[in-house]
């Protein structure tokens, strides 16, 4: 199953081995500059006086990512600092603070956070939380991202269609992202219910299944932050 969460919520989350030892905590989230996917995390030490760790945590070594902790197999899951340099950009660097502009030249707002879809095996940056340029809009909005996107400098270009899928809260945003991406792929999702109705519709399921490149867990996206989940024994 997939949950949507804000990248900023991961910061300070402890990194715990399966043996139960905390080896660090998340300092920052690092994205791949080519695809916008999550590349990994930089780490701080645990404890009051510990500074940044020299180790990083590549995403493929994450065993589990939950509301209480980021789990890794053991300390060998940590890589050294070089593993994440070069191809990636820090969350505080290229993404946060850049302006989102549509291809037709409308300014949507400034990126304040990145929304991640976290599944059991893979994760993806699916949208941005923005501070809207339009003063009459709610204080924050969520815009979906295309599958791939160049995260470059001060501005991010989005297709015009993205404006239709802007949501004011995370509930329903997962479905909006899905529809947006399906539309960009030229799928025939231009059905009437694509507008407004954010809930996944049973009629949408065949279309989503037809998009073969879509990872299976995307279809069952639950639209809630993982902190709201029931805890005991729900991970079977």
């Amino acid at each position, binding site marked *: 199953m997939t949950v949507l969460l804000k990248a900023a919520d991961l910061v300070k989350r402890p990194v715990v081995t399966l043996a*139960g*030892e*905390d080896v660090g905590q998340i300092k920052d989230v690092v994205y791949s500059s080519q695809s916008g996917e999550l590349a990994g995390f930089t780490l701080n030490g645990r404890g009051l006086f510990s500074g940044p760790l020299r180790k990083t945590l590549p995403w493929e070594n994450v065993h589990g990512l*939950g*509301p*209480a902790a980021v789990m890794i197999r053991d300390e060998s899951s940590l890589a050294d600092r070089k593993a994440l340099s070069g191809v990636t950009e820090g969350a505080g660097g290229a993404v946060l603070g850049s302006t989102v502009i549509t291809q037709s030249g409308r300014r949507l707002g400034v990126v304040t956070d990145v929304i991640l879809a976290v599944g059991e095996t893979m994760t993806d940056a699916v949208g941005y939380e923005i501070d809207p340029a339009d003063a009459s809009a709610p204080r924050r909005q969520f815009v979906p991202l295309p599958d791939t996107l160049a995260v470059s400098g001060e501005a991010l270009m989005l297709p015009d269609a993205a404006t239709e899928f802007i949501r004011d809260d995370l509930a329903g945003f997962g479905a909006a992202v899905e529809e947006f991406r399906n539309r960009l792929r030229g799928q025939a999702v231009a059905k009437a219910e694509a507008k407004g109705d954010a809930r996944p519709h049973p009629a949408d399921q065949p279309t989503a299944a037809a998009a073969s490149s879509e990872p299976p867990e995307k279809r069952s996206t639950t639209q809630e932050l993982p902190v709201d989940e029931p805890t*005991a*024994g729900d991970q079977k």
Partner: protein
Amino acid sequence: MIRFSDISGNPVMDTSTATAVGKVQAPIVDPVTQRLIGFRVKKSKGPGDVVLWTGLAGLGPDALTVDSAERLADPPAEWKRRAGTKLDLIGRVVLTEHGHLLGKVRDVEFDPADGRVTSLLLKDAFVDGERLLGIGSYAVVVTG
């Protein structure tokens, strides 16, 4: 099955002298074998404060028995850290391997015959002993 809370604080009796040589303080659990490997004992009159499971003469509802106070000794080197207070099971938070918080360990239920941990008791949940993956200084990690 008995729960650790049923025997916590019970006296450890020396069968050769019929005197109390300590009180049961905490269970020591090996997460790899998911078994109790012994108990930490307070007010020990022996050379150390750990009695190993193999050194017990009896485990009754009202007392632990040993055949000599010498059984209360320092733990062997491989269990030294495991027996310390920093890795105590009771009171430690429980995380699943996917990073979900389940609660804190309130009690441990084990098989008195072989020391197998059958379940961890949380505030409002049971965790099967076989789900135990690790007991560390930060958390108890379980599968699922």
